[in-house]
């Protein structure tokens, strides 16, 4: 039986990895991920599971060690944030190209400069094209569930790709939440031991991480893209199985009060909870607003997005990062491109919100929606807006 407990979410993320009986954790601590690192280290030091904790000297080394361990057939977990993730960037596409099913918890935090330790999504967005499966958790329960689901998805024979679970720094990582911790026996039934496709072992030598020039690189990239695209089917199947076993449903894009909604707002991560309260308030005022919470960022849920926005007049896409000199926020850029071919599509408004930990309250989300309701289909002058920016 699952147990209902009150627990800090960062600690819960590490506990979830322990329920998955990881073999190796290679982690370098960084705010606000540090409690994940510390707790993984505690779990190993206390001998609670038979695992190694590799104390690395940097995040680049953390990912490199994780890859080496994964290549031997070990189940590997790591975690990072912000500058650490940026430092890891060089190795991320190698992990996915080598099809190593590493699971990484990311405590999302703004990137420097200027130095800022608070939450936004500017660390994960530059990793978008690394070939990792990317999940976004909204609350502590989703963090626990996704950490466990991540191993099953990553290790699936038809996937074999690394997965990152995005957890808003502080807003989620440092929150003590009541949540259901699945039982070890249930997790064991859900997650069988990892059966690797190939391993580094002297008894049967293989080469990994090899050389491929212009005569074959294109084919390798096509195969990698196909792996990402095809992984969606497995992700959906794993989420179905999760719902059956644990009773909690997951979708690439979760709708909240979308029935009859003319104005939809799209969020990723923990702000979905605040935005949902705003939607309730707006509905009370008779404004037909609804919320779309995107949980799956890579592979991008094209079909689900098209279906979700059908019938809506306006779609407000919130972004927690900036593509400087580009289309605004990276999420809005992708949403616009995904809907471009649709015969009818909503007007798209891009609000860049909550940068570097700037608070977004219920009334802020309400203001955004009410402004959009008033403007109707009238085209805005700017393709995007830094919500709440102090202007002269």
């Amino acid at each position, binding site marked *: 039986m699952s147990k209902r407990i009150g627990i800090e979410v960062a600690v819960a993320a590490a506990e979830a990895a322990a329920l998955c009986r990881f073999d190796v954790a290679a982690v370098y601590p960084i705010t606000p991920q540090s409690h994940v690192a510390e707790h993984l280290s505690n779990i190993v030091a206390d001998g609670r599971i038979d695992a190694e904790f590799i104390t690395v000297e940097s995040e680049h080394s953390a990912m490199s060690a994780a890859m080496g361990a994964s290549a031997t057939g070990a189940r590997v977990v790591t975690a990072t944030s912000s500058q650490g993730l940026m430092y890891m960037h060089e190795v991320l596409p190698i992990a996915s190209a080598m099809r190593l099913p590493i699971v990484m918890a990311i405590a999302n935090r703004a990137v420097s400069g200027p130095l800022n330790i608070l939450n936004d999504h500017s660390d994960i967005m530059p990793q978008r094209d690394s070939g990792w499966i990317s999940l976004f958790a909204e609350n502590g329960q989703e963090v626990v569930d996704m950490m466990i689901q991540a191993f099953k998805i990553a290790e699936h024979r038809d996937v074999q790709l690394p997965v990152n679970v995005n957890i808003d720094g502080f807003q989620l990582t440092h929150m003590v939440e009541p949540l259901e911790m699945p039982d070890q026996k249930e997790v064991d039934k859900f997650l069988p031991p990892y059966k690797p496709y190939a391993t580094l072992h002297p008894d049967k030598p293989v*080469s990994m991480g090899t050389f491929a020039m212009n005569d074959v690189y294109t084919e390798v990239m096509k195969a990698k893209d196909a792996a990402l695209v095809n992984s969606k089917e497995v992700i959906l199947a794993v989420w179905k199985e999760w719902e059956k076993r644990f009773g909690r449903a997951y979708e690439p894009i979760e709708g909240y009060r979308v029935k009859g909604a003319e104005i939809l707002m799209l969020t990723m991560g923990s702000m979905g909870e605040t935005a949902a309260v705003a939607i309730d308030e707006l509905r009370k005022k008779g404004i037909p607003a609804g919320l779309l919470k995107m949980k799956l960022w890579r592979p991008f849920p094209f079909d689900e997005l098209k279906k979700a926005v059908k019938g809506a007049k306006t779609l407000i896409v919130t972004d927690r990062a900036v593509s400087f000199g580009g289309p605004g926020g990276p999420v809005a850029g992708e949403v616009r491109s995904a809907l471009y071919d649709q015969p009818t599509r909503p007007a798209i408004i891009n609000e860049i919100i909550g940068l570097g930990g700037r608070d977004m309250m219920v009334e802020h989300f309400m203001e955004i929606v009410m402004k959009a309701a008033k403007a109707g289909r009238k085209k805005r002058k700017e393709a995007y807006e830094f919500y709440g920016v102090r202007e002269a």
Partner: protein
Amino acid sequence: MAAKKWPENWQNVNRGCVVFRPGSAGDYHTGSWRAQQPVWDNVKCIKCGLCYIVCPEGCISEGSDGYYSADLDYCKGCGICTHECWPRAIKMVEEG
């Protein structure tokens, strides 16, 4: 020498590019990168073996007569052997 074998299509790319056959790097003939090739003048050669030691490709070998030559399947034409051979027995010659 096994013939160079690329996957015919992307569907045939081994997952993660794992190579199950040891020694397959030998299939890749780096000699195609070469613009100049080393040519030995054995009259000047004193059989010191320095060229054999310094070749970064490891493609120089000693013949039964004690003189040295490069395997042109792998020689990249870097010219290090020529530069290091102190009796100046090796010359770099443009590829024809």
